[in-house]
């Protein structure tokens, strides 16, 4: 039976198991929208295509499934660019479907025509220009296979209007994808695993660095078994948080520019680094020439292009992390790491109490202490999915909150996309309707996609929004203070009344200026069936500490100047 390309598109999505797409209609994608009513797929109408892309991203990160976003040609497609780049940097499986002008008009500067495959070429794993309905099924099937295989990432399928309207037979079986298979690495040879085991066995000060790859490959349980069996402590990158339980005795902490001092110092002291599914981002390594100077380095990574890109390693195992760990486990022996673990405990103790309750509130110049606000939220909602934006609140959140499960911290790590949190949280909530979902955003970032408050209302979604309002672009201001003579060029912002703004979109909203009010507001938001926004008015002068200046050595971190118990003089 012949069907239109538009109908075939929805059938392909259904057969790929898609339950929800995030999108925004427009001229060149209208045939697809016209055919949508015959489909079982739920459509979530965003208020901006960037929002739709982040929703699909949040959906994918929360569920591990492929997120799907739909947009029209031209401006609709270019509005996806930031969302695609965000997903590309953080290896998020996404399929973007865009309408395109009719094939007869391609290249003619037709109304709403943009060379979308050209524009998105460097920010997608691959993209397709579909000009005939026969090309649809092969493109969609390969797009899904590619998005989720190997190192996941976004794939875009640009479909001309005439390809959506013309008819053909759907040949699903004939469209089975194979090309992505040639990019999957062969299984790591046993000889390489034996080399790794020998290197691990010779170590006295081993350390695991857990990245996003742990979650992406479903290697959390294998990682835990590995660390416990060999008695190796675990540090996490931003996107690695939650891949290893933060309350586990072997969990060391968050690493990198704003990581805990003992974690970064442990990296510099270790004699073996096991880098699992991470890519040595510059926010993690500091100066790469002085990173982990005493360590033998083993890198387990599925993307060969990441091996040796920033840090030279002694052994690279290119493959699926879970598979590699599970194959290493039977021959993994406990290491004599007692002295090392004791040394790390001592280092931790030197940096102050580990128990949140034992911390005195940090001195604040005005308003709430942002860290105290986050501690309240952690204490009230220990099992929530936290979707953070970008900036100071994101780093405080990573420092303060105890992520014990994978996919409970959703944040834009690699690209650092402001405006990510609210739409990504909408996607996360649709992926995990049973979960409590919180947006944590700054006053700057929330304004970058605040239009999506209306999507919350239209879709009847319950989540809570914490706006950490310090009246300034906090991280920018912090860098200006620390590195640019405190010249606050364009960082202070005049803000809308966030309570009125949220109310205009039909959300409940309140403002908290004291810790008591903050606690009360968090409890009210949790018990309310309606989505609720809380504006926390916080200290505009607070900085994220410690901070390793860009390009400095990990041991050269700057500490909170007001702290009574500063870093030991090890730098």
């Amino acid at each position, binding site marked *: 039976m012949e069907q239109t390309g538009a109908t075939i598109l929805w059938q392909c999505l259904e057969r790929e198991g898609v339950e929800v797409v995030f999108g925004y209609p427009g001229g060149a994608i209208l045939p697809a929208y016209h055919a949508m009513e015959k489909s079982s797929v739920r459509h979530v109408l965003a208020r901006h295509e960037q929002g739709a892309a982040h929703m699909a991203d949040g959906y994918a990160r929360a569920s591990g499934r492929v997120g799907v976003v739909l947009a029209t040609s031209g401006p609709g497609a270019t509005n996806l660019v930031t969302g695609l780049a965000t997903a590309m940097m953080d290896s998020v499986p996404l399929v973007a479907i865009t309408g395109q002008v009719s094939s007869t008009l391609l290249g003619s500067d037709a109304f709403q025509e943009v060379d979308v495959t050209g524009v998105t070429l*460097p920010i997608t794993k691959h993209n397709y220009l579909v000009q005939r309905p026969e090309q649809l099924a092969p493109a969609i099937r390969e797009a899904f296979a590619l998005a989720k295989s190997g190192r996941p990432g976004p794939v875009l399928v640009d479909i001309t209007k005439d390809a959506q309207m013309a008819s053909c037979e759907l040949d699903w079986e004939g469209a089975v994808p194979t090309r992505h298979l040639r990019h999957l690495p062969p299984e790591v040879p046993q000889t390489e695993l034996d080399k790794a085991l020998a290197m691990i066995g010779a170590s006295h000060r081993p350390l695991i660095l857990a990245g996003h790859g742990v979650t992406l490959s479903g290697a959390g349980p294998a990682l835990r078994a590995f660390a416990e069996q060999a008695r190796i402590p675990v540090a996490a990158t931003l996107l690695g948080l939650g891949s290893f339980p933060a309350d586990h005795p072997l969990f060391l902490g968050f690493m990198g520019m704003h990581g805990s001092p003992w974690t970064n110092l442990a990296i510099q002291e270790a004699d073996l680094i096991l880098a699992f599914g991470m890519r040595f981002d510059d926010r993690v390594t500091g100066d790469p020439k002085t990173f982990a100077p005493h360590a033998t380095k083993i890198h387990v990574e599925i993307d060969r292009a990441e091996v040796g890109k920033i840090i030279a390693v002694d052994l690279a195992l290119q493959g699926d992390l879970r598979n590699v760990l599970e194959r290493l486990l039977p021959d993994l022996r406990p290491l004599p790491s007692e002295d090392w673990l004791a040394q790390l405990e001592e280092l931790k103790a030197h940096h102050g109490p580990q128990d949140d309750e034992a911390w005195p509130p940090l001195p604040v110049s005005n308003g709430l202490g942002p860290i105290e606000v986050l501690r309240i939220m952690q204490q009230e909602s220990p099992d929530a999915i936290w979707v953070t934006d970008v900036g100071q609140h994101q780093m405080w959140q990573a420092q303060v909150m105890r992520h014990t499960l994978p996919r409970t911290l959703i944040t834009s790590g690699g690209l650092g996309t402001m405006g990510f949190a609210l739409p990504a949280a909408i996607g996360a909530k649709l992926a995990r309707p049973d979960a409590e979902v919180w947006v944590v955003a700054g006053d700057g970032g929330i304004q970058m996609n605040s239009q999506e408050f209306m999507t919350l209302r239209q879709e009847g979604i319950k989540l809570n929004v914490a706006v950490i309002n310090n009246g300034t672009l906090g991280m920018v201001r912090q860098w200006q203070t620390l590195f640019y003579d405190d010249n606050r060029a364009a960082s202070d912002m005049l803000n809308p009344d966030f309570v009125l703004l949220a109310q205009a979109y039909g959300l409940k909203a309140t403002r908290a200026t004291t810790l008591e009010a903050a606690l009360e507001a968090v409890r009210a938001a949790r018990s309310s069936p309606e989505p609720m926004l809380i504006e926390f008015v916080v200290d505009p002068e607070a900085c994220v500490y410690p901070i390793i200046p860009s390009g400095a050595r990990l041991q050269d971190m700057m500490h909170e100047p007001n702290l009574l118990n500063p870093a030991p003089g090890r730098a």
Partner: protein
Amino acid sequence: MFRILIVTTDNEPGVLDRVASTFRRRGFNIHSLTVSPTLDPAVSRMTLVTDLNAKSPRSAKAFLERLLNVHSVVDLAETDSLVRDVALVRVAAGTEQRPGLFQLAQIFHAEILDVSPDSVVLSVCASPERIEAMLESLRPYGLLELGRSGAVAMPRSSSLASAPVTGETIEDAVSF
């Protein structure tokens, strides 16, 4: 230092763009590039000569291998290889200069394609080094115009095995 990469790809629209983009975004220059179908018309073969300087050729190869359309990448620096380049060169030469010029052409196995009253067009298919040597010999006559195909290459042995991963890194990583 020039590196020659043999890249085999799907023969479909946009592949050249993807390959070129991989080099462009990392600031690698493409010195020469030839593309043509292989014995299998669905597969294209690119011979890509690049000036990688301090940047790692290993990473260029790995970034190319990440592309869906790329079947394989072989770095000819790792094997003994055969390289040929075609050059067309227009040389200033009146009647008096021609005998000497024709002698040089013979030495370099160059073909005389065209003779005008004041110039001669030679064509040669040789290794890039030999073409450079010929151009140097011709320079005293006056070189008027040069067109080159760019290198086409293949390994001397039939094995296209790729080498194991080593720990080369991008030098002088920029931070901000």
